[in-house]
């Protein structure tokens, strides 16, 4: 190997280490998950944030604290297998009602879902308070409006939902494959119909953006790529 290349490699390795330290510091300092774009501003020109994150995650794999992905963001979290040790006395201040729990699950697995669709699965009307409560908890957000008569609001889950339940993405929802296989994610009898999968990406073809006066989550979540 020519001397120039070796020098380049050494320099490159130093840059990587320096960037990893910065990444570590930033992610450690924040309680909330951070997006690569938020981190990138602190790194040197041309740094490959995703590659650095992958490297950092690898270094922390198997440790007491792991680097985890939550949707499009990253955060340090204590290792799952240590949960039994760290578990503090049950301070679950917010016990969700059965109705709220079911509604959350239906939205998570069927998203984007309208209120009528949630009600159809549960077979009862959903109290106004239930959706409010889930939105206040920060787990559910209004996504848009379905392009059908009445333009009903579509609901989906948030990044905080993924973070709270320890999911990298919706594909990690427990039992998703089995439910899909059994045709239970469909809104109808599983005939020849395609089985939809939960989806929290940008608006779909049959969704309009929320109206300007719709309330809900800060809209910046929605419009960002």
């Amino acid at each position, binding site marked *: 190997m020519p001397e120039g290349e070796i020098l380049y490699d050494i320099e490159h390795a130093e840059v990587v280490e320096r960037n990893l330290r910065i990444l570590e510091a*930033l992610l*450690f300092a924040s309680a909330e998950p951070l997006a690569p774009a938020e981190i990138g501003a602190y790194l040197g020109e041309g740094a490959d944030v995703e590659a650095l994150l992958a490297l950092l995650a690898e270094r922390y794999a198997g440790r007491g604290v792991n680097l985890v992905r939550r949707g499009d963001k990253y955060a340090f979290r204590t290792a799952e297998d240590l949960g039994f040790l760290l578990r503090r006395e049950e301070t679950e201040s917010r016990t969700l009602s059965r*109705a709220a729990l079911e509604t*959350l699950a239906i939205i998570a697995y069927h998203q984007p879902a309208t209120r009528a669709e949630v009600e*159809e699965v549960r077979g009862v009307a959903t109290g106004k308070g239930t959706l409010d409560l889930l939105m206040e908890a920060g787990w559910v957000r209004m996504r848009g409006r379905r392009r059908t008569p009445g333009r009903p609001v579509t609901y989906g889950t948030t990044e905080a939902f993924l973070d709270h339940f320890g999911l990298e993405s919706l594909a990690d929802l427990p039992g998703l494959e089995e439910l899909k296989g059994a045709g239970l994610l469909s809104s109808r009898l599983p005939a020849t119909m395609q089985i939809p999968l939960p989806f929290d990406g940008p608006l779909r073809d049959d969704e309009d953006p929320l109206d300007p006066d719709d309330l809900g989550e800060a809209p910046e979540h929605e419009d960002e790529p």
Partner: protein
Amino acid sequence: MSDTSSGWFEAPERAAEGEVMYVDVGGYEGPLDLLLELARRQKVDLSGISVLALAEQYLAFIETVREKRIEIAADYLVMAAWLAYLKSRLMVPQAPGDEEPSGEMMAALLQFRLKRLEAMRGAASALMHRPRLGLAVYQRGAPEPITIRKRSLWEASLYDLLKAYATQRERSVPADYQLRERTVWSLQEAREILQRLIGDSLDWVPMQTYLARYLPTPEQRVTAMASTFASSLELVRQGHVELRQTLAFGPLFVRRRAGDGGGPEDAN
């Protein structure tokens, strides 16, 4: 669902006297929940249940409740009407040219809905047992103050703002009005309830006949019939449903128009 077909025509098991009878309606989250509970008593696996027996048990339960003159929510009565219809479809073989949905199809639909509800409950429970943040997994306990993005000093969302406004305006309204006592629910409402209960994959259904049996008083039947007829005409005009009556004064069949609820172009 073919594995269930044998179960549909079995003689309904006699519901153990006193078991079904003393169920408390208040404890259920709607008719599907009650049905699920009844089904679970029959068998653990929903694929193996006898839908006919299930319908019998449900109807018996509703009868008891009504005999005791206990108020029961409209949803439960609509489900009873639908199950009575389902029962009749299951017991009488389908005649050729009969355009009504077959009993088997309706039974499969009910089974599907019960399975889906049960699956969602399972999913909810699985979610709650995940290593949840703050319960089994922790974030940094002492985050160091860092601001990645420039943030304004004060935080409030538009939602908070509007909620604050609406709450105050509502608070200022004299609170002496009362909830309207509903003595009548129209068949249009009934159909909405039904759609919630059964979904909209229904075909021609002579619901009126069955529903009438479960409407408490004759006066209610009359108003209900009248208001439904008017509202269904409106829905026909808007192109949402189709009506069919095979003979004068015969039962009125209603069904959702094909394609309605699909893309926007279908809706028009």
